[in-house]
């Protein structure tokens, strides 16, 4: 067991994937000499060379579009988008090509491309550096969308994503990059596209992912002192969703709170609410409640503490669910 920051765990995971398969490339703005603005690719260019770790021209459409071409040629590119808000120049290539080439070629051309996106707020940044655009990708058929929440998952999920033959949009909770946790580099990890119960409980189910997982685990500790037992599910995969553990949990608790930083309208959280009411209608003691960002542009950072779900808002929703 090693205790690693999520940043270091991702770095180690990338390194292992590059060692395991010479066709794995890393490409993006500043990922080489600098090692990425968050240093996730630190040292990789030094060890694997400039043809496997590419400091690309400044163009996200170029990064994704050439990754598609490299994948057609048999490479396995791992693209870094510098910040969530800068993926959109590349969105056309993601939606029109990356997501569809396998289908259009009737399965003849796989697209083993990973697009890593540091996402979410809470770092006091300027515009376009704090967004949660995951639902815009979950909505697109042909893409797999995952989000890690801790060092161990970061280490394993990045390797699993790279070995997946489909395109994976890989969301990394940037404000958690420097949080440390144990990484078990020996034992077999859970499959990539599985959610996981991180804390068992009996009163209310809380389903969440990415940066909000830590918030919800903290909320569970706080709730316990009030005598409320929360079950916390880390969704890990946002498309496809793996909701069986959530259904199973909600059938026991009868209550569900879904937590995410993203705006609520037409989102991963609304999808979960819809499916849970379909599958667990007779078990529900309260409507599915959501704690999310708002249907507004991400605000100036001095407002972000009010925008982001925090422990109090999670507990407030738990109370409302219980009082229903």
């Amino acid at each position, binding site marked *: 067991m090693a205790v690693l920051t999520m940043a270091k765990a991702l770095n180690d995971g990338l390194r292992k994937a590059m060692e395991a398969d010479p066709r794995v490339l890393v490409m993006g*703005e*500043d990922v*080489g*000499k*600098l090692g990425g*603005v968050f240093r996730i690719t630190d040292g990789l260019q030094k060890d694997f060379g400039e043809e496997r770790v590419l*400091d*690309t*021209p*400044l*163009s996200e*459409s*170029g990064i994704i579009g050439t990754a598609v071409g490299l994948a057609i040629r048999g490479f396995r590119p791992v693209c870094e988008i510098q910040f969530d*808000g*800068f993926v*959109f*120049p590349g969105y056309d290539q993601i939606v029109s090509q990356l997501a569809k080439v396998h289908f259009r070629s009737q399965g003849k051309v796989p697209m083993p491309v990973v697009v890593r996106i540091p996402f979410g707020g809470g770092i*006091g*940044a*300027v*515009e*376009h550096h704090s967004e949660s655009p995951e639902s815009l990708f979950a909505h697109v058929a042909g893409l797999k969308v995952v989000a890690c929440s801790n060092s161990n998952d970061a280490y394993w999920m990045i390797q699993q994503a790279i070995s997946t033959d489909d395109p994976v949009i890989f969301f990394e909770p940037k404000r958690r990059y420097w949080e440390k946790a144990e990484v078990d580099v020996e034992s077999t990890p859970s499959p990539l596209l599985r959610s996981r119960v991180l804390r068992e409980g009996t009163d209310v189910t809380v389903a969440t992912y990415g940066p909000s997982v830590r918030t919800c685990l903290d909320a569970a500790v706080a709730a316990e002192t009030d005598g409320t037992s929360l079950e916390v599910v880390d969704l890990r995969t946002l498309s496809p969703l793996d909701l069986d553990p959530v259904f199973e949990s909600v059938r026991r608790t009868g209550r569900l709170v879904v937590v995410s930083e993203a705006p609520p*309208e037409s989102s991963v959280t609304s999808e979960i609410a819809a499916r849970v009411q379909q599958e667990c209608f007779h078990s529900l003691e309260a409507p599915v409640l959501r704690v999310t960002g*708002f*249907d*507004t*542009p991400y*605000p*100036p*950072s*001095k*407002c*972000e503490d*009010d*925008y982001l779900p925090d422990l109090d*808002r999670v507990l*407030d929703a738990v109370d409302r669910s219980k009082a229903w």
Partner: protein
Amino acid sequence: MSVSDPQAWNPADPRSRPNREQVLAGLRGTDAGGPELVQLLTPEGERVPDARFDGYAADIDAETLKSLYRDMVLVRRADREGNALQRQGQLGIWVPLLGQEAAQIGAGRALLPTDMVFPSYREHGVAWCRGIDPTDLLGIFRGTDHGSWDPLEKRFHLYTIVIGNQCLNATGYAMGQRFEGRVGNGTDATADAPDEATMCFFGDGATSQGDVHEGFVWAAAYDAPVVFYCQNNQWAISVPLERQTRVPLYERARGYGFPGVRVDGNDVIACLAVARWALEECRSGNGRDELELWKLKDPIERVRVNLVREHGVDQSFFDGVAAEADELAARLREFCLAMPDPAPDRMFTEVYAEASPQVEAQREEFLAYHASFATDGEA
């Protein structure tokens, strides 16, 4: 001594002689920009003739040059204060303009009030020339707003952080200027409806973005009166220019069908003169130019040397500007420390021009939630 007569510089006059540091600073500030590089003021502070652009610098007398110097010193001082405020945690980030003062003041002073500007995120010097006080920039970097000036009133659009986006926006605005007949009226133009142009700022890294290329294509297709003003500081974060281009950037313009000029970005007179030329081309209906501002490093010292040597400006002027700069920095700091946080429900305001019931409902819920803490506290 007049600028139009650079030979009047007398090397025997001690006032004309730069000290060693000044010479070195000037030399560091320039190197091979190529024979095409437009330069009207050498790194040693010597005003040199330029057949093509002298006409656009003919009015730059000692007073004008002093005011250019003052602008550059003030924006640099404000910039350094922004940097210090960032280091002290008062700003989340600060994007420095250091070294780009001549490029920005030259362009900013070439613009007429009726022209329009689309900046990237670094054009504090151009903002200054548009009458935007440096205090108005602080909110962006402190996280209280996304820009507090009125872009339409100042004719200076909001900062654009997504690299390259603004090049298409600027082109569209310029298309509008043309569609409204605001170009090519020459002497028929009236004070109410003068000819106009648009200037669009971006960096060398940005030239790899699709939006920038598309902006070039559209500007050419519609003869849009837009000047593409590329400040080539050689780097996009850690990535050097060679990764973005294999030809000098100004040469790209020809491929799109408009002129490109490489200007010494450390030479405020050249920047001003060439920007005036390009804007005039646009206003007169000749449409779109690309300017590349080459190597942005140390633009202020050569102006100072020139003022001393060729215009006999004495130390009291420079001391006065320095004192004014310190006052500006103090005002900026004081303002920053006193900035109020935005109202908590700021994020729900002005999302739409016509209010959205959904956002309004979320605002009500948000306010009720916050009010519940207040009552809890009193109870």
